């Protein structure tokens, strides 16, 4: 049997686990590993400029491909810099393996140089973590880490490796386990058949049904089953922020996103529904508004792979633990076998009601914003233009704030894994490294990072990584010269007292900044120039382009839930109008 050092074993094991790209940043405790990377060509290491970006890029790579993302950082500050990225992946259930170097075992606990208790620091934001103590355990631990990260409800796994374990002078036999078995971890995929039967019966008896689908549908690759079920029954569908793309955004049965900035029609329909099929969604507080007022008349069927998501905030009447893909397929089969159809008369009346809501205040039928023209560019119109220019086919990443909500509302995602955003943690700085990860996965596709002048500055150093690794992405900067979402809340709840959301004259010239990194910069201040500029931007296939677009700084995101104590249907529709 071949004898290898710990560093070589680690890289070989990553390769055997299917890793093509490893995002990282070197440092003292990881140097043996970096030396092992130097002497091989199977795993492609991508040097970033900050460890947070390495995690976000690997995370986005995982989101768009469905594979596990991999990260390598050093101990101490390298590890702690990765924390925001790990927390982001944890909140959105993204499969990642994050390898951190650690000081040698004889120094652990001594407050050694660049020592941080990574296992302890990361514990609340990982699915699991391992400290590897022997060379012999590296391959098996990596196999386990990938297994845990990618099965059940996916999530990030940290593997902390002390430097002595990767010592090039200590060599042991390499063996990558073919199968992993963990006696304390056996995730359920198949739903309980009795529960599925009950659910189907309830679903077919519905008079005002709603299908509420979340990110779990995308993670489980269940979009096809979701579409088939929805079309089979002709039931309306809404998506969470994380679920966008699981059902086609441009489809007639799609009512738009639900929740705090969801559409009037989907929030109102949810409120009045009598049966709700929740699939891979977790009744997040940004969806439910006040939980006690959530959908007062509805029987709730809840499919989720994670039992802790069920009845956590809203009680489920029919809980089904299992993979969305498997459970939806079973439901479709049972419906087809039964030969039963929903009550067509009730359903027609329900659709009629929904169409009335849609025509009254629909996001796409009755615009929530004024027109663009001259030096007024409405941010919503930028997203619509982006959709037009990219023909709805781009991978869109975003940061966090108003621009994120506008992108979610107006870029009608027709396919799963097309929309990449930090939904749970709400991490500013996610967008640019995420675009880098998506572009690495799909070099032939357009990747647009929809961002704002606030968020983009949180990971802007990655403009340099884009140059080095020739990853041309398009940055759509909705520049409203303020932290727009905070400003909106200060407008609505704090009497427009703008506390620390303005930069005075300190904003950089983004065009020059982009050029300094070797990219193309464009400034757009007039609406009439927008389409041509954007077409020019996307025509430059092999260049990263930074489009600095000056949008109307007074614009708010609507609809918006009335809070606190509102129900789902309690919405602000504009600055002056509410339901």
């Amino acid at each position, binding site marked *: 049997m071949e004898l290898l050092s710990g560093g070589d074993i680690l890289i070989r094991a990553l390769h055997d686990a299917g890793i093509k790209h490893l995002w990282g940043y070197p440092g003292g405790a990881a140097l043996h590993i970096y030396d092992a990377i130097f002497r091989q060509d199977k795993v492609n290491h991508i040097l970033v400029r900050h460890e947070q970006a390495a995690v976000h890029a690997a995370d986005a790579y995982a989101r768009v491909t469905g594979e596990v993302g991999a990260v390598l950082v050093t101990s101490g500050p390298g590890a702690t810099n990765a924390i925001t990225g790990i927390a982001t992946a944890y909140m959105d259930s993204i499969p990642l393996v994050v390898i951190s170097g650690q000081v040698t075992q004889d120094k652990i606990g001594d407050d050694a140089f660049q020592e941080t208790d990574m*296992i302890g620091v990361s*514990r609340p934001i990982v*699915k699991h973590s391992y400290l590897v103590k022997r060379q012999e355990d590296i391959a098996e631990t990596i196999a386990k880490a990938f297994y*845990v990260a990618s099965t059940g409800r996916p999530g990030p796994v940290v593997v902390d490796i002390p430097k002595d374990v990767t010592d090039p002078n200590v060599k042991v036999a390499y063996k990558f386990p073919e199968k992993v078995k963990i*006696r*304390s971890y056996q995730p359920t995929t198949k739903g309980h058949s009795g529960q599925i039967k009950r659910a189907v019966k309830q679903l077919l008896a519905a008079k005002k049904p709603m299908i509420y689908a979340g990110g779990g549908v995308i993670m489980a690759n269940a979009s096809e089953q979701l579409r088939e079920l929805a079309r089979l029954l002709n039931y309306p569908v809404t998506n969470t922020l994380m679920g966008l793309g699981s059902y086609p955004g441009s489809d007639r049965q799609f009512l738009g996103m639900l929740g705090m900035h969801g559409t009037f029609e989907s929030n109102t329909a949810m409120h009045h529904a009598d049966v709700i099929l929740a699939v891979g969604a977790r009744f997040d507080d940004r969806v439910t508004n006040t939980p006690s007022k959530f959908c007062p008349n509805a029987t709730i069927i809840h499919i989720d792979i*994670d*039992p*802790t998501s069920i*009845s956590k905030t809203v009680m489920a009447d029919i809980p089904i633990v299992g993979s969305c893909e498997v459970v939806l397929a079973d439901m479709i089969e049972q419906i087809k076998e039964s030969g039963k159809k929903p009550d067509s008369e009730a359903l027609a009346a329900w659709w009629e009601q929904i169409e009335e809501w849609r025509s009254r205040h629909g996001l796409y039928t009755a615009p929530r914003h004024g027109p663009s023209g001259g030096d007024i560019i409405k941010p919503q119109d930028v997203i619509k233009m982006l959709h037009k220019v990219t023909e709805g086919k781009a991978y869109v990443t975003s940061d966090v704030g108003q621009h994120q909500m506008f992108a979610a509302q107006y870029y009608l995602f027709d396919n799963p894994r097309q929309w990449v955003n930090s939904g749970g943690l709400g991490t500013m700085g996610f967008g640019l490294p995420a675009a880098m990860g998506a572009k690495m996965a799909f070099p032939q596709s357009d990747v647009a990072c929809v961002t704002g002048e606030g968020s983009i500055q949180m990971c802007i150093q990655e403009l340099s990584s884009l140059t080095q690794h020739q990853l041309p992405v398009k940055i759509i900067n909705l520049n409203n010269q303020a932290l727009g979402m905070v400003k909106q809340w200060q407008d609505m709840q704090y009497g427009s007292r703008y506390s620390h959301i303005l930069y005075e004259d300190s904003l950089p010239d983004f065009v020059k900044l982009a050029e300094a990194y070797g990219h193309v910069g464009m400034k757009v201040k007039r609406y009439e120039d927008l389409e041509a500029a954007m077409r020019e931007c996307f025509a430059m296939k092999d260049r990263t382009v930074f489009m600095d677009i000056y949008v109307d700084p007074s614009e708010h995101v609507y609809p918006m839930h009335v809070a606190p104590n509102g129900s789902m249907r309690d919405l602000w529709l504009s600055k002056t109008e509410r339901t």
Partner: protein
Amino acid sequence: MKRIISILLENEPGALSRVVGLFSQRGYNIDTLTVAPTEDKTLSRLTLTTHGDDKIIEQITKQLNKLIDVVKVMDLTEGPHIERELMLLKVKAGGAQRAEVKRCVDIFRGQIVDVSPSGYTVQVTGNSEKLDAFIASLPEGDIVEVVRSGVSGLSRGEKSLRL
């Protein structure tokens, strides 16, 4: 309502911190906690008491089950069970009090395990309420030191928590 939760845990470094961390992270309470390896050296058995309504207890057991190092979880209070706690207590016992304290120890079927001229060290076992009652039976101000093990328990009859 008080609940006694029994957990079979992988006997791995850091496993206990994951359980304890879960409680602080999610705002649940741990009232008592006891843990030691079992007859199978790869497994630890942890018993903790907590309180909360049914919804919270359901979340606690689900969240515990979700931890990768947790092999099995059982809420002992769901069925008939035996619970025991051990207490060691140092109490002043001089002069006339000496006989009175001794009587109390006998009533609670405790044992005097150490003696000094000024007092006794007493061992009492039983459920938590019994230990509380013993403390209450002693004259106020006479207790020097108390240490309690926290609750351990098993379900009655055939039911068991094992691999």
